[in-house]
């Protein structure tokens, strides 16, 4: 069974015309596919219009399985961040509804950890206190202990007592990831988390994220406009189109895990990248004036 096929039951009929990915190149073991059978996040015919004529997001339906890593990819203005804000509960849809584990999503909760693009650490708290914030709010035992373990796992134990403003961009984002993971959320929502980092730091962060994901296996929705990043990280790449924001096409990513950056040189990777780039170029042109 291919990954692409495994996701078919999750797909809403509305987007069934968005063709599933090309024939998968590698087989995935059946147990892993069965794991994904439960739908964790579901968008049901969601429209967000911000009171404007052309909605930022129009009639989007999408199902995301438990433990799945999905990338939302598209040019700026395609509504991918808006969609993520709906999933996080920050933005209520104008029409339609979002569901988490079958329950309607009515606002932000500690079940969905969010990693923001930048400047989201609380500058008035040390790195450690930032990570301990969630556990404290939930009344978990030993918040500082939880925070220390997580900082250790992202390699930042030595800057636990530093203020965020004294950390580099990459360090700040790692603290941000640790903070989002501290409440042990089943879902991790990431809004272009590496977009502001330099290329070298970015590729190290991608590998680090994969190794964290491998350990904890949360459901991840990862917003990016970087095609390689999306393919390298995700099980499924959802390509969006702009004006109005919709799902253009979905691609199952066939590469086996754990993945190393070398897969980016494989012909199958390059072929997939080209195919996605073609769609995105058309979409980017629409809103380019």
């Amino acid at each position, binding site marked *: 069974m291919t990954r692409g096929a495994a996701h078919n039951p999750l797909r809403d009929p509305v987007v069934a015309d968005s063709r599933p990915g090309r024939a998968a190149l590698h087989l995935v073991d059946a147990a892993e596919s069965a794991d994904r059978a439960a739908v964790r996040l579901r968008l049901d015919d969601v429209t967000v219009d911000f009171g404007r004529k052309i909605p930022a997001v129009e009639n989007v339906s999408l199902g995301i399985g438990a433990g799945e890593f999905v990338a939302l990819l598209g040019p700026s203005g395609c509504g991918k961040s808006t969609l993520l804000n709906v999933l*996080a*509960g*920050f933005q209520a849809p104008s029409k339609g509804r979002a569901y988490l584990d079958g329950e309607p999503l009515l*606002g*932000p*909760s*500690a079940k*969905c*950890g*969010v990693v*923001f693009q930048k*400047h*989201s*650490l*609380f*500058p*008035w*708290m040390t790195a450690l206190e930032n990570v301990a*914030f*969630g556990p404290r*709010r*939930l009344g978990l035992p030993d918040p500082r202990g939880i925070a220390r373990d997580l900082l250790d796992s992202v390699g930042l134990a030595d800057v636990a007592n*530093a*203020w*965020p*403003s*004294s950390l580099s961009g990459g360090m700040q984002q790692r603290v941000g990831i640790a*903070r*989002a993971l*501290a*409440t042990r959320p089943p879902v991790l929502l990431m809004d272009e988390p590496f977009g502001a980092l330099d290329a070298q730091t970015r590729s190290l962060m991608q590998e680090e994220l994969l190794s964290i994901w491998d350990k904890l296996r949360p459901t991840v929705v990862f917003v990016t406009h970087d095609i390689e990043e999306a393919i390298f990280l995700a099980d499924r790449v959802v390509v969006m189109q702009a004006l109005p924001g919709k799902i253009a096409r979905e691609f199952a990513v066939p590469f086996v895990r754990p993945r190393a950056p070398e897969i980016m040189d494989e012909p199958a990777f390059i072929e997939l990248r080209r195919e996605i780039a073609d769609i995105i170029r058309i979409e980017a042109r629409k809103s380019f004036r």
Partner: protein
Amino acid sequence: MSVGGGKKGYRATGSALLLGSTGLAIFAGVWALAAAKLGNEVLLPSPLSVVKTYGELIGDGSLASDVKASIVRVFAGFFIASAIAVPLALILAYSRILRGLVMPLIALIRPIPPIAWIPLAILWMGLGDPPSYFITSIAAFFPIFLNAFAGGTSLQQEHVNAARSLGARPAALLTTVMLPSALPMIVTGLRIGLGQAWMAVVTAELIAAQSGLGYMIQISRLSLETPRVLVGMTVIGLLGAVMIGVLGVLERRFIVPWNFTR
């Protein structure tokens, strides 16, 4: 503060001290020369006679009691103003309706200088301490209010979203996100407000009180004891600078240390 400070920090402090005291020495020298040239103790007493007067006033205890009276008035006004201005500013920063209701009134009252309130203050409260508290609190109110308001409105949506997605309820949001994010601006307002209260206390005492440094300056002027006037003036300068400096240190070390990393 401690990160990477050390030797370099000490050297910088040392050279700042050296430059500062040199500047003061030059000023005192020019003053002494001018006083000697003028030869008129009433128009411009020499620095030496001011120092001598310092000795007398400290000796008979009158300086201490005047300083005490003024400090009490400054802090009374400062605390009254802070207690009203900070909560009010934060409430207005978060409530659009209240903001629309109150801001025009504040815009109209703000340009009225504290001294213009003195007649009303005396009519309402008579002579003595209450009108002085009133004047110093009026003076401290606006810088505190305006800065705290700016702090309240500078709240970043990302911080609110992050806190909510980490399980923060409204009460926790207020104390762990809104308040600390406004704090740097609030402290700036407090520092400016304290300075304004010091300036206003003299105004209030010149007219509405029978003690304090302002009152001392006023009666010394009437008896042409200019060295005493200068003692009053320099004490106000010194105390004001020390208090604002102490508040600055508290700010960097304890209140908003995250704003002072390098």
